[in-house]
């Protein structure tokens, strides 16, 4: 089998997972400038939602489909709660937000460990996701295809909301010039709240999807959070399309590096590549021209 084909597909799978995780960050960090380190724990909340749904429904063929919107709601509500109690008090202190949300993440992880135990929970994947699809001679796993579909769906949804709805216009207005938006009557506080709900909810969806490929454990989010932030930074703040390209680039480059070097060395090299890339483009791939993001 052709190495190029197989690693492009495997890399695209990783890229889709990264995109799904980073999409929520692209909203909360990219649009609002809030560094939410608890985003990883919202993934975990989504994953445990999938587990609980499966316990309740017991039919694994449908439980996943129910869990997707549920995960969105659970993580979204957690995000809303976080925004209202903590983040809203510190919009003028973005770096401090990072540390506070890291603390929140630690607490959420320990809560999950105390509630669900340290042992990973088994979440069975639906039977209709078993098997492979033959693409250019490569047996592409249907689960991975499903994740790509969810990622594309979330992406399209987010883009549509931003572009075509009144809410999206308010979000963009707030990003580009908060004071001016306020002046023309946009409730920037309300906009922030809804944006944060959406961004956190996307993490919940990503968490549900992650149960298909990895262990449902309390520290699920920790290994995704740093690469996801790198995706948003490399893609350029405030630009969803930048995150899309960055996620797939990171995934595919990572796959090829893993193929030709080793798993751990590939991690090192991709991170170093991103840092080097920011030397060339300190603002990321795409930049929004605004006065407020200096």
């Amino acid at each position: 089998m052709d190495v190029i084909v197989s690693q492009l597909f495997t890399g695209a799978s990783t890229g889709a997972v990264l995109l799904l995780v980073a999409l929520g960050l692209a909203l909360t960090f990219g649009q609002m400038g809030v560094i939410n380190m608890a985003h990883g724990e919202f993934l975990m909340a989504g994953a445990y939602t999938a587990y609980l749904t499966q316990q309740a429904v017991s039919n694994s063929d449908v439980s996943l489909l129910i869990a997707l919107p549920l995960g969105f709601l659970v993580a979204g509500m957690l995000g809303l709660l976080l925004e209202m109690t903590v983040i809203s008090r510190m919009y003028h202190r973005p770096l401090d937000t990072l540390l506070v949300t890291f603390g929140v993440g630690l607490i959420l992880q320990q809560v999950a460990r105390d509630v669900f135990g340290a042992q990973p929970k088994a979440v069975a994947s639906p039977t209709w996701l078993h098997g492979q699809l033959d693409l250019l001679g490569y047996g592409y796993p249907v689960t991975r295809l499903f994740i790509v579909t969810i990622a594309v769906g979330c992406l399209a949804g987010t883009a549509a909301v931003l572009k075509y709805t009144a809410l999206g216009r308010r979000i963009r207005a707030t990003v580009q010039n908060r004071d001016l938006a306020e002046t023309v009557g946009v409730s920037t506080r309300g906009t922030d709240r809804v944006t944060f709900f959406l961004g956190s909810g996307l993490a919940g969806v990503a968490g549900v999807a992650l149960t298909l490929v990895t262990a449902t454990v309390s520290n699920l989010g920790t290994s995704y959070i740093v690469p996801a932030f790198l995706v948003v930074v490399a893609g350029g703040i405030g630009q969803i399309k930048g995150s899309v390209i960055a996620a797939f680039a990171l995934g595919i480059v990572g796959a090829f590096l893993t193929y030709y070097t080793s798993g751990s060395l590939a991690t090192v090299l991709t991170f170093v590549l991103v840092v080097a890339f920011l030397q060339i483009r300190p603002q990321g791939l795409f930049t929004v021209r605004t006065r407020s993001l200096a």
Partner: protein
Amino acid sequence: MKRFSTLPALNLIGIAALAVALLVLAPAVLDDFRLGNLAKYCCYAMVAVGIGLAWGRGGMLVLGQGMFFGLGAYVMAFHLKLEAAGPDAIPDFMMLYGNGTMPAWWEPFRSGAFTLFMVVALPATVSTLLGLAVFKRRIKGAYFAILSQALAVAFATLIISQIEVTGGFNGLSAFTSFFGYSLYDPINQRMIFFITAGLLVAMLLVAFQLYRSRFGELLIATRDAEERVRFLGHDPANIKLVAFVIAAVMAGIGGAMFVPIVGIVSPLDIDEVASIGLIAGVALGGRATLLGPAIGALAVGYAKTSLSETFPGSWTYFQGALFVLVILFLPGGLAQLPSYLGRLRPARKQKQVPALQAEGAA
């Protein structure tokens, strides 16, 4: 300058008090085991002094100090490993994991002098290169924080992947002596404690001088209004670079002392989680003050040990709550408490520590 007029004396008294507590009181009342613990906290406190400089005074949230801590620690561990192996012999783990040969670049670490030089030079060089790259390109704020964190992950992963020369995930351990002094001897362990505590006091004195200097003023100015500093004809990148490099060197020295004290260094001690853990003490003590970071780090170290002895697992809740409560409600740390109380009595207002947020250049 007037604003700080009462601070130097107070700070010097504080340093002296801490020196007495560490160098006289602690050795008198603590048993060997607890003194060893305190020595470990002192290593974290050294890193904290540097973080206080870079973050508290310079506004750079350094989320990757574990990397510099690790550079110092691994340099020292290389030397101690060779010392344990004996002249001309190679470290035990290289025979276990590798093919029984030692790479040439390990050889110079047999020399104690070279090792001590590298403990300082390696973090300094890496931080200079990194700082030049980052600050000259005006990468700052959140971007800088995330990049420094990513580099800590990359560095720890690199150590894990190069098991034949770094000991990998297991780290390096089983040292026998420290520059000729047996590590098994309690008297020598005390000696190492005194060196560590002495270094911490020395670093506080360095920070004290820096904070009072023109550079210290410029650093705060850069933190609060970088553009204005630029307009005044200074290059903020250079100012930040100096603070960043000094912080890195302090972290490196802390790391180097950590190794003979704890007897092991592994990637878990230097990765992104450990790095962010180093921030906790600084936030608690008061990031912008001179003594706050060090005292905070000592307190957090002590809390971690004692909490984990009483309730396993509770440490995570405590650390999480510490980040949330302190940073949300007391961004100036515990050092802010007196001025909080002082604010109730307007007469004492001039004793406030330098404010965290831009007060607007007047």
